[in-house]
Every structure is written in C-alpha cells, then in structure tokens.
C-alpha cells in the first residue's frame, strides 16, 4: 500500500465520462479490478476508482462526475497534482478458460485493463443508458454494445466465465444467469484499506468489507 502525489497528464472526455490520466510514479498498477483512492481536491475524503488503463508510465481512471468529489476530479487540468493510494483490494481472478466481460454504465471502468491483461481481446458485452454514454465502449476492444431499453444481461450466452462490473441490479441479474461469475461491487468508501468499515455490503446474507474482501467477489 503506497501513497504518492502524482501529476495529471491529461483529462479526456469520453461521452459523459472523463478519462483522468496521471503519471504512474512508483505506484504499481496492480491487478484488474483492484482500485486506487484518489484525492478529490477540496474534499475531505478520497474517492475509490478502479484502474481503467495502464499506459506506459501512466495510470488512467474513467470517472463519472456524479457528486462534488468526482466533479473535482474531472475538473483537474494537466499539471495538477493529487495524492493516489493503491493498488487496493482484490481484483479479478484471471485464470479463466472462456472469459466474457460484462459491464453496465460506468461499470465499464475496470474492463479495458482487464481485457488487456487477459490478452487476445476476450469478448465483452456492455450496456448503457444512451448512445452518448455508450461512447465509452470505444475504450474496450471486441465489445458488443447495447443501449436501454435493451439490457446487457440479454446478451450473455451460457457457458462462459463471466467477469462483471456494473450497478447492483445488473450484478444481481448476472448472478442469476451465471452463478459462478466474478462480480466487482461498489460502495461508498472512506479509506480503501479496511479502516473505516464503511463499505460493508450484504453479499449472500453476510456483510463484507468491499475494500479488503472485494471489490471483486465470486457470486457463488
């Protein structure tokens, strides 16, 4: 667990989202599905973000500006600096035979790095609420895209090793279709390293701290 002050390389628009690219410093990109705590300028608490891409010497995060912290992150300019802590938590198990990447909305964030690490452009299905949001699919090779009212769960064929990230209703639906799926969950998180007990979510009737037991959990 390492915390460094990193400088912003660029902040690029991807549909309604922002791809925040920062210098890597001495931080390890970690495994796909792991996350980093990003200092949100002017806010008390950092924000958890899974790594989207790991270009040489950089870490890139896809951010949806939904509140004051993420808005502050999306407003950063090249040359600005922020503290970054990570990598944190447990990522996806890459030892799968027939991977299918499944993403919903901003849940696409960890999938480009996951696709890259799995290699050979594994198939992916991603769903969005509008064509504008679906522009983020350009970050993910070999992706089949759907837009509401079509749901991404309608595109999941049986018999594949599902690795998914998205909103809770989507993950719950994926869990029904693919009981052995690996699911990346999300919860408000103050620290990211097990200190605050804030990110507990109920999975299979048990409360789990997502930051240390997740964020990627086996469905079954």
């Amino acid at each position, binding site marked *: 667990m390492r915390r460094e002050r990193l400088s912003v390389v660029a902040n690029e628009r991807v549909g309604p989202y922002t791809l925040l690219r920062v210098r890597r410093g001495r931080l390890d990109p970690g495994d796909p599905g792991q996350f980093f705590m990003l200092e949100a300028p002017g806010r008390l*608490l950092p924000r958890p973000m899974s790594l989207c891409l790991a270009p040489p010497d950089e870490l890139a995060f896809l951010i949806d500006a939904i509140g004051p912290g993420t808005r502050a992150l999306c407003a950063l300019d090249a040359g600005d600096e922020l503290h970054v802590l990570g990598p944190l938590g447990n990522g996806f198990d890459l030892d799968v035979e027939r991977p299918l990447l499944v993403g919903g909305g901003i849940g696409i964030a960890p999938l480009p790095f996951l696709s890259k690490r799995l290699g050979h452009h594994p198939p992916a299905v991603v769903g969005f609420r509008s064509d504008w949001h679906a522009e983020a699919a350009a970050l993910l090779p070999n992706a089949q895209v759907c837009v509401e009212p079509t749901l991404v769960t309608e595109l999941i064929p049986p018999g594949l090793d599902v690795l998914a990230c998205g909103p809770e209703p989507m993950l719950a639906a994926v869990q029904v279709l693919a009981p052995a799926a690996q699911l990346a969950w999300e919860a408000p998180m103050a620290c990211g390293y097990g200190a605050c*007990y*804030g990110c507990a979510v109920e999975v299979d009737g048990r409360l789990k701290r997502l930051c240390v037991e997740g964020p990627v959990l086996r469905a079954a």
Partner: protein
Amino acid sequence: MLLNGSGCLDALAAPDVARALDAFVTKTVTPLPRDGNTPVRIAETDVGMLNSIGLANPGIDRFLTLHLPQLELLGVPLWVSVGGFETNDYAEISSRLDDYASVSAIELNVSCPNVEAPAENASQIVAAARLATRKPLWAKLSPAVPDIAEVARAAQAAGADGLSLVNTIRGLKLNERTLRPVLGPGQGGLSGPALKPIALAAVASCYAATALPIVGMGGVRSGLDALEFVAAGARHVAVGTTLFADPDAPARIRMELHTAARERGWNAYEDAYAAAHADALSLRAT
C-alpha cells in the same frame, strides 16, 4: 502520545499504520458479535464525515481468542475500547481484559451515537468497570451534553484515570434529489474538521474541571491541530477521520507537531500543555 480514534483503524489490515502510533486503540468490543448497521454507512459532508457503522465487532470471546494474539505481535501498546448496552456489559468485559498483560488500558465507550444509549449513565459504568479491573480506565465522552465538565467530574469521582474527548456528535445528511437520509440507519456520527472546535471546547472545559489526563481528538488533520489540543489541555492526541484520507498521517502529524511547537517558541510540544489556560482564565462555558 499519538493514538488513533477507536474505530478509525484496523491494525490487522494496516499494521504499518498502527506501528506509526504510540498506542493502538481497538474498535469497540461488545459482549456479543455485531454485524453493525445496514449500509449505507458513511457519507461525506462539506466539513466532515458521517458514519453509522454501529459497533461492528467480533464480540469479546473471538476478540480474545483470535484478534488479541495477532494484535500482540504488532509490538504497539494496546488500548481496548469497550462497549455495551448495560452497566454489567462494561464490567464483564473489563474483568476479562484484566488478565491480559498486553492490554495497556481500557477505553470505556459510553458515548457511541449509533447504538441505543446504555441505560445507565457514564459514572455508573465507570464505577462498575473500576471494580472489575486494575487497568487504567479512560472514559470516552460525548460532547452532546449540556455540561461535559460535570460528566467529567462524575467520571473522575467514579474512578476514571483519564478522559478521551470527544466521540462523534449526531448528524444527518439528506440526498439532494430524494431528500431522504443518505445513511441506511438515518443519522450518524459527525467527525472531521466540523468537530474540532467542539472537541477543543470539551478538552478545555474538562481540563479546567478535573486533573485527569486527556486524549484529545476531533478533526485533527495537522500538527498544528494536534498542538491546539495540547494547548487546550490534552496530554495525548488521537487521529481519526484523517487516517481514512491519509494512512501516512501519523508520521506527518508527529513531524509537524514538533515543528509547530518550535515555531511558537516551545522546545517540545509537551511544553505547550495547557498553554491556552496560562492566564488562569477559566475556559468553561458560562
């Protein structure tokens, strides 16, 4: 000494952070295991943070058999925070901790804002725990009382060896769109910078009212914040919410504390102890 606020650090998940402290304070232990409250459990506010964790903990049995042996390996003095729902809970846990040499002190959490308040008041709890253990007893008090100095005097009379000031104070955040509470249980404990002036006032009042040593906490983000608590009358300072944003905070604050003291003409930060009271004016609320 620099400590952590109870519930603001899991020493087993982040041992290096715990080792940077002079003593580690555990999350509150209750007689029986508790899952804690329904998510959502935390929310940021403009000047602080709300939490409603609800004393999630393994219970005293598992704490003693599974957690304490691992905590002992850290090599950091251990303070165990004790909670309960009736006076006897505190006495029973204190009695059981009495046998463990590795436990340096017991902090009695008589002030968690996220569970039903214990039926009895702080002084009864301190008195019962006093009969049950020889360990130093620190009473952690809530600032949400009309006169905290009165509670402090009662705790002292009941046998407390020190005071931990302060616990969080209850707050509410509403979702901007739905106007419903953000936190699952509704309300939560407010910590962070918003709590600092309230905590400083509590420390100053209790310093003036009792001779007890005080651990001051509430919104400590920098060495200067810590020095202010020392000046208000705290022998020791604890960091809480700041640890969430910066696990390297203990070493940084310690360094800043020495610098801040020297810049103000003190050889060591301890020399600034109670400096806010030097003119002998009582800082007690009038």
